[in-house]
């Protein structure tokens, strides 16, 4: 049975709506559940503050849910999309739009739960700080929504830009790559930027005097944890805005899909790893506020090094997108670039988290003894991170072999 183009596009828009809110519901629900569980713990500790904690929990959950609501909005738009006369490539762009929004909402929703939970616990432990904690929770979880907002920007562009100028082959792979790149990359950063927000809110309850210092560090730590998601967004923009007319359909489609996967997957690890580092930095500054300058510098160095695997992924994506490949319909020709992207993508996850953990414990120690061991520990951290990165470098070498030797 043959279907008309319109039927395909309609089906794809429904599928996209399903992916959008289906994936998008995961993170927000986790984050809200975590907040609710900790609110119960908090009320158990200090029943007198029950009303205030409940109110705080509800506010925190509302913000953590916003990523899920973005996904709902995109899903609604997809369901009621007017598909009359749309070209076939629209089917792929609508599907990619749903994936971009759904995947990118996972991390932000889950991350938004950390500050909400810590604020509830903090109010129970130190009731007078209530207002400061709620404010900080709001700021922390608002920053945490940024990766989901990136996903939404790309999803919106995929939905409403005019795709009729792009060829179906390899244009479909470009839009799918764009959706996957921004969606996957936002997962790690969303969770990662929630971690410092949680630690800072918890720390503020114990050390209300240093609130400004803690909050500044939290904002820097969260923002830097979002850099991997930004790489995903940049790759998505390149895939969407470059004109793919004139490139050979085979094997360019594999390169473009691989480009999306390389940056998207490899960004997950550094996003989470950077979150661990920033979390320890915020907690450390809350313990010893005088250490803030040293700790922030060490945190930034550690985070930058931990981002190297996503930079490798970005490099592989650039090679895949912009170094033209000869037209060929053999299996080797398309399997090699696709595998290169997948290889670098998955290879980047572990080192990103590992290097982030190395930096996290270093920052933790430096916060306790910021005048003594700083330089020594930073050296140890850099060497340890370099060793932990070697597996990421193996992935890069194999990717480059796949691209240039085979």
């Amino acid at each position, binding site marked *: 049975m043959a279907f008309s183009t319109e039927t395909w596009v309609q089906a794809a828009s429904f599928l996209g709506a399903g992916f959008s809110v289906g994936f998008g519901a995961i993170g927000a629900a986790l984050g809200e559940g975590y907040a609710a569980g900790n609110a119960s713990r908090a009320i158990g500790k200090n029943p007198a503050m029950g009303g205030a904690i409940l109110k705080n929990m509800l506010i925190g959950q509302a913000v953590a849910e916003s990523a899920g609501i973005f996904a709902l909005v995109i899903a*609604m738009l997809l369901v009621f999309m007017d598909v009359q006369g749309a070209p076939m490539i629209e089917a792929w762009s609508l599907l990619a739009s749903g994936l971009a929004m759904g995947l990118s909402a996972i991390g932000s929703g889950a991350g938004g739960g950390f500050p909400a939970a810590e604020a509830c616990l903090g109010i129970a432990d130190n009731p007078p700080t209530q207002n400061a904690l709620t404010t900080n929770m709001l700021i922390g979880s608002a920053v945490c929504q940024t990766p989901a*907002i990136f996903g*939404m920007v790309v999803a919106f562009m995929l939905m409403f830009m005019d795709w009729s100028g792009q060829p179906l082959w390899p244009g479909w792979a470009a839009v799918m790559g764009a959706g996957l790149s921004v969606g996957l990359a936002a997962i790690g950063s969303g969770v990662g930027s929630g971690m410092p927000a949680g630690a800072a809110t918890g720390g503020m309850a114990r050390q209300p005097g240093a609130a400004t210092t803690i909050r500044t560090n939290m*904002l820097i730590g969260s923002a830097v944890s979002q850099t991997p998601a930004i790489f995903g967004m940049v790759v998505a923009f390149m895939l969407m805005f470059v004109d793919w007319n004139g490139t050979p359909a085979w094997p360019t489609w594999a390169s473009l899909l691989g480009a999306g996967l390389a940056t998207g997957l490899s960004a997950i690890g550094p996003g989470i790893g950077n979150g661990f580092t920033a979390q320890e930095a915020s907690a450390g500054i809350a313990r010893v506020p005088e250490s803030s300058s040293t700790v922030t510098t060490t945190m930034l160095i550690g985070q930058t090094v931990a981002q190297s695997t996503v930079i490798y992924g970005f490099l592989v994506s650039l090679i895949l997108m912009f170094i033209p490949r000869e037209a060929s319909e053999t299996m080797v020709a398309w399997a090699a670039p696709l595998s290169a992207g997948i290889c670098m993508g998955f290879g980047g996850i572990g080192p990103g988290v590992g290097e982030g953990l190395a930096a996290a414990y270093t920052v933790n120690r430096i916060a306790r003894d910021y005048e003594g061991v700083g330089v020594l520990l930073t050296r140890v951290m850099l060497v340890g991170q370099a060793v932990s990165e070697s597996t990421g470098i193996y992935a890069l070498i194999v990717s480059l072999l796949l691209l240039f030797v085979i």
Partner: protein
Amino acid sequence: MNELTHIPHWYLSLGGMRLEFNSETLLMSWLVMALIVAFGFLATRKLSFLPGSWQTLGEIMVGTFQGLVADALDERNRKYFPLVITVFLFIWLSNMLGVIPGLSEPTRDLNTPLAYGVLGFFIAHYAGIKTKGLKAYLSEYVQPMFFMAPLNIIGELSKVVSISFRLYGNIMGGSIIIMVVTDLVYSLVLPPALNAFFGLFVGTIQAFVFTMLTLVYISVQTK
């Protein structure tokens, strides 16, 4: 919904070259500059020991940012304080413009955040060379080992990309969600709350994040 991705242009032919200006961004940037000048004028016009409301506002801002700069930079580099507070004022006022119907944020055009990102990048590296000397500055690129140099250079360049796309993505995303939801609910009930959250709240936070990152990049280079 196409109006968000569409940027109005002015064209100018100059000796065979065709120049393209983003007219809306330009006009809005000039408006922001006018607002900053007006604020500066109002805040410093009648300085007195018992400050008036504009002077108080100015003093609060200067005091807050002086504290932040003093935390991050050493004595020699305090001179970057005017730069830091100006970046904040410009980006913050830019983000606030979106709340007013009919006006749009200059920061919604990627060119504006990118210009500020590049500016911050060059100033941070200039400050680094000036404070440490060229030799010490260059030797940092081969830390911890010489083959890390390409990675360090890409890492530095990626800071420009991340700082500008973060601001652009947030402001663009905020305007998209405001527009789409306003359209879906036929402009009833929700738009003011959305404008307050994405326009005022997120706009302020992101302006602060951008400023703090610019300051921290200078501080990392000068240590």
